[in-house]
């Protein structure tokens, strides 16, 4: 890192206008060359681990276990056997990832939709409906981001398993969920944990909508639900997309919540849980681990690459000013 620091300053020089002297021009070109070189080196270093894994996942088992993946360049031997095995194999050791893949999907879709809907409703109310204590409520919801979800895990799990009783009166029965029904727990948990940030992010967008628009609609006699549906929703689609991608990546990639609320079986556990398990118990089965890791990576990568624009916008809105 320290060795690269001087080139930082050097790198900024390429924003300079064209220097008038020949020497200056040569120096500038050399400097921007160093900058380019350093940035390429960083990019390569950053990409190599993933690339190595991808190559490995396509190599036959014996090859993976005995030679480095870089030998595939001199001795190319490729197969899809690993994927076939890890996805569709029926033996308990093979991975059965197809089944877990469906779990990931079933967990993710509602876990994205629910917070999106609830948070946009709440954000609208906090931004455009006047009522007492509005600012305090917003700050309170925002501040809930402080609570690390580790703090909610034990009681929330108890809440699902034993329900709520207050002074002997059962306010809410135990959920008693089995197998696939446990999805509901995971949806619930993900929705709760996502709300503070979702409200914060969407509030940022919604409160910046032009007030004249709302005023005009109010004068025309539109009610809040009508304004919300016909004016606000279409305008905040980019924000919804941004948060949707956030939430999607976070839920799909989550391990902790799933580990606790989904149970470990192939009825409900998502890919991440299964992979973590395989990494622990079958740490040397590289042919399965490499292929499995790629199966879990591929969906978020597609989402990420195709919707990167929205994602970045959401990131900037969430962390830096508008």
């Amino acid at each position, binding site marked *: 890192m320290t060795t690269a620091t001087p080139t930082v*300053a050097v790198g900024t020089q390429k924003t300079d206008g064209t220097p008038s002297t020949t020497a200056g021009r040569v120096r500038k070109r050399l400097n921007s060359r160093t900058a380019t070189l350093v940035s390429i080196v960083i990019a390569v270093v950053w990409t190599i681990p993933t690339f190595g894994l991808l190559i490995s996942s396509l190599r036959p088992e014996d090859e993976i276990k005995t030679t480095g993946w870089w030998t595939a360049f001199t001795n190319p031997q490729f197969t899809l056997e690993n994927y076939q095995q890890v996805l569709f194999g029926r033996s308990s050791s093979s991975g*059965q990832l197809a*089944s877990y893949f469906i779990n990931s999907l079933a967990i993710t879709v509602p876990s994205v939709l629910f917070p999106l809907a609830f948070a946009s409703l*709440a954000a609208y109310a906090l931004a455009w409906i006047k009522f007492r204590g509005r600012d305090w409520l917003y700050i309170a919801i925002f501040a809930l981001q*402080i609570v690390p979800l580790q703090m909610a895990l034990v009681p929330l799990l108890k809440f699902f398993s034993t329900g709520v009783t207050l002074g002997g009166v059962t306010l809410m029965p135990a959920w008693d969920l089995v197998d696939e029904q446990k999805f509901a727990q995971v949806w619930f948990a993900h929705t709760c944990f996502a709300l503070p940030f979702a409200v914060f992010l969407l509030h940022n967008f919604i409160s910046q909508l032009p007030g004249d628009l709302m005023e005009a609609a109010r004068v025309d006699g539109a009610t*809040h639900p009508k304004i919300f549906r016909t004016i606000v929703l279409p305008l905040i689609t980019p924000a919804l997309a941004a948060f949707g991608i956030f939430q999607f990546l976070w839920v799909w*990639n989550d391990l902790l919540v799933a580990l606790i609320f989904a149970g470990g079986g192939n009825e409900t556990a998502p890919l991440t849980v299964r992979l973590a398990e395989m990494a622990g118990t079958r740490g040397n089965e590289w042919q399965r681990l490499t292929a499995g890791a790629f199966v879990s990576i591929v969906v978020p990568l597609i989402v990420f690459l195709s919707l990167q624009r929205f994602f970045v916008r959401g990131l900037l809105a969430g962390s830096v000013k508008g």
Partner: protein
Amino acid sequence: MEFDFAEEQPKFLMLMYGLIAFVVVVGGLLLLLDVVPAWFARRREAQLVTASASGAPLPRRRSKGEGLFALFFLLPTLLLLTVGLVVPAIRTTLLSFMDAGSTNWVGLRNYGWMFSDDSIVRVLINTLVWVVLVPLIATGFGLIYAVLVDKARFESVAKSLIFLPMAISFVGASIIWKFVYAYRGEGDQIGLLNQIVVSLGGEPKQWLLESPLNTLLLIVIMVWIQAGFAMVVLSAAIKAIPGDIVEAARLDGVSPWQMFWQITMPSIRPALIVVVVTLTIATLKVFDIVRTATNGNYDTSVIASEMYNQAFRYGQNGQGSALAVFLFILVIPVVIYQIRNLRQQREG
């Protein structure tokens, strides 16, 4: 031997129930919000008509309607936050003063345990190392890279490459890096790191078993994931620096080095703070990497993973809760700092 699609049907059924629930809840809420006010409006109209007919004073328009609307809009969020975060957080705080089975009060014993048990002190030290190194290195790399590729021809591709790990799960990333750190006793190495060591004439090592080196190697994974985030935010901040300031500085003949320290750095300070704070919070809660890569063994555990172990593997609810509360206490000042910063930015 083949995958049976029919067996997966209950899952899709459950997913469908979830979607139906979504439509019913959200649709029902919006419908309710539409129908109820319309009904009130009609009733009010009728009242007005009868009032004007009988010459009685007109009923005053109530201003509470707004509040009622707000309540409905906020209802699901407030309900879920109360059930899912507020009440559990309070309960966890209470549990942290109770014993393993959450039946007897034990006062501060769990907290005493936290600071006296050698293995837990080790966990706290590890967390400290994480929280110092990750934000610093990730932000540093992100900043250097953002400056380097700024306005370069291949900028968007170059940025995507660094940003890509953000999309990969911590579990996936850990497996990727476990493979880099892989060790073989005899024959060719299959792990890149050991291969490099061997080709430089060294001995292959079991990287993840050697403390404290293994903690640093896990930190590398986190840095690898998060540098992209830092880079994207800082890059946007750099691009937002007004052109005339840069131009003026250039006319004054400042060197690139001065330009960086006197123009770029002060201009992106707010973004820099946000990045460091966000990374700090993320690092404090790191769990997946440690669990996947070493399961917290070989002295690599951090607070979040130890909390899981205590509460869910050893059944020590009290000790697990105490760790969670401690994590909460660590996060508070960081978040307050961020809130204050955001507010200043907004006013400034």
